[in-house]
């Protein structure tokens, strides 16, 4: 169907003249307070600005920082790939678990309001508080969770989670899963509730069993929702900072040094702002490219919001 047919009133209702004052404040705000600092950051990325070193007063050095970052910063790239692995692992687990729980609720529970509200609790807590709660729970000597892990024999008595390098990232992923799986559940649940019944009945009549209905009908119909959840979680996981910083500070060694922790050290420990801005710019660029590819390819085509 052509665009005009789908949206016969579009131009009549709000022409450009009348929509401008409505959209102007938002655009201005974003331009001034977001594009402004962002432009400043981009400029800073091409300087040697440092708050610490008196010899680096912010001289323009072109793309030197970028060259340094691309070619000569193994720690950045270590953090980068660690972050990528973290995002992939956390989001995948959250997605599968969250989907399964959503199916359970959808199938078996009629009165969902209290349940879903309670599920919202972890994601509504301040990240700072979440980091501290889990630091307390997983502390090796008086942590409640550690105690029961020891009791149940799931963890050797002679070890503790955050002191065992091989367990640190799994634990961080598990905590992220704890905090964000309910989010996936709730959104998928909302998607399930809004699914039309008839395609499933049609598939039943056509002879599809539960599994084929799931793969052939449900997943494709939920595609926009799934894409949305993955996108949101992906972006947020990529930005993960507070929890990990409070719990491990990026260690032991560099096992949990995510990009944001690396960025924190460059900016707030070393006060190497030119380089810090370069890091920020690169991170933004990567996320932006991934998102636009994802967004254009999957989300926008299938969920035509507002274009009716």
């Amino acid at each position, binding site marked *: 169907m052509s665009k005009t047919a789908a949206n016969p009133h579009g131009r009549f209702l709000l022409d450009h003249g009348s929509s401008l004052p409505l959209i102007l404040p938002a655009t201005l705000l974003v331009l001034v307070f977001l594009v402004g600092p962002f432009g400043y950051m981009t400029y800073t990325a091409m300087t040697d600005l440092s708050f610490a070193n008196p010899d680096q007063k912010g001289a323009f050095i072109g793309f030197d920082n970028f060259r340094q970052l691309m070619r000569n910063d193994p720690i950045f790239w270590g953090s980068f790939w660690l972050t990528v692995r973290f995002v992939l692992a956390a989001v995948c687990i959250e997605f599968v678990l969250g989907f399964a729980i959503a199916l359970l609720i959808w199938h078996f529970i009629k009165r969902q309001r209290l349940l879903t509200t309670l599920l919202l*609790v972890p994601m509504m807590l301040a990240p700072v508080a979440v980091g501290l709660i889990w630091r307390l729970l997983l502390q090796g000597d008086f942590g409640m969770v550690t105690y029961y892990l020891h009791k149940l024999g799931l963890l050797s008595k002679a070890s503790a989670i955050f002191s065992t390098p091989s367990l640190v990232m799994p634990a961080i992923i598990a905590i992220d899963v704890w905090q964000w799986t309910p989010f996936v559940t709730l959104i998928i649940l909302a998607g399930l509730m809004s699914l039309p019944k008839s395609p499933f009945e049609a598939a039943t009549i056509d002879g599809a069993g539960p599994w084929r209905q799931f793969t052939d009908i449900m997943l494709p119909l939920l595609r926009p929702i799934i894409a949305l959840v993955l996108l949101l979680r992906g972006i947020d996981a990529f930005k993960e900072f507070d929890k990990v910083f409070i719990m491990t500070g990026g260690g032991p060694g560099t096992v949990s040094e995510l990009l944001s922790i690396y960025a924190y050290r460059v900016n707030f420990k070393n006060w190497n702002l030119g380089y810090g801005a370069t890091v920020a710019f690169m991170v933004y660029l990567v996320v932006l490219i991934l998102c*636009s590819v994802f967004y254009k390819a999957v989300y926008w085509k299938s969920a035509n919001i507002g274009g009716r």
Partner: protein
Amino acid sequence: MNRSYKILAVGVLACILVITLTPYLWMLLTSFKGRLDILSPDPRWFFTPTLDNYPAVFIDKDYLPLVLNSLIISTASTILSICIGAPAAYVFARTDFPGKEDLFFFFLTTRMAPPISIAVPLFMFFTLLGLTDTVYAVVIAHTTFNLSLVVWMMRGFFAEIPREIDEAAMMDGRSRLGAFIRVIIPMAAPGVAATAVLCFILSWNEFLYAFILVAFEGRPLTVGIPGLITPHGTLWGQVAAVAVVATLPILIFTFLVQRHLVRGLTFGAVKG
């Protein structure tokens, strides 16, 4: 058969709920424990509760004004976000203009940069404008960063309202703006509420910008929490007390608008 499946499912869900809530519950208990109970190697589920942590942090450490600061910052930025974001969302929901989707996407990308890496440029920029150390700075920052959320969510809500409603309101003699304010906004009220609550929560929980941009006397609760981690020991009981107080309003709001919140979070990708 079906029944036993159901019992199994309810059992699994109950376990999940327990896992989900136990950390929060533990924090709640911790806020009523003395230091020796908190540090006990075997977890104490039953103990002699003490109320000391609350006055210790809110009165002695003078954290009570922080609650008010949090309220002021969150409320102001929420109102501003809605007032600025909703009209923009309305335009996105109702009109077609060249580059609309690109502009929309641009709004979305503002959420993508890790805050930690743009915090310093942001601080320098606000200093340039002479806004640092004022409440305005953090309110503007939160508003800017919540704006994308508002536009995204509200667009979905507005899209669900039939265009005929706008047209009817205009036939009744309202201007376009009047139709939007008097007719469309009230119709989208649950959506507005859900969006507002989400903005409120994000602003309420936000740490970094609040820390950098706000002066000491205006700092919100989140910024106060790290002050309880000292080389003389983390004051776990007080940390827990602050965390409990900090989460209460959020839990209440969440419960009130839960249904719309979930729908809002799907940004209109889910209808109904």
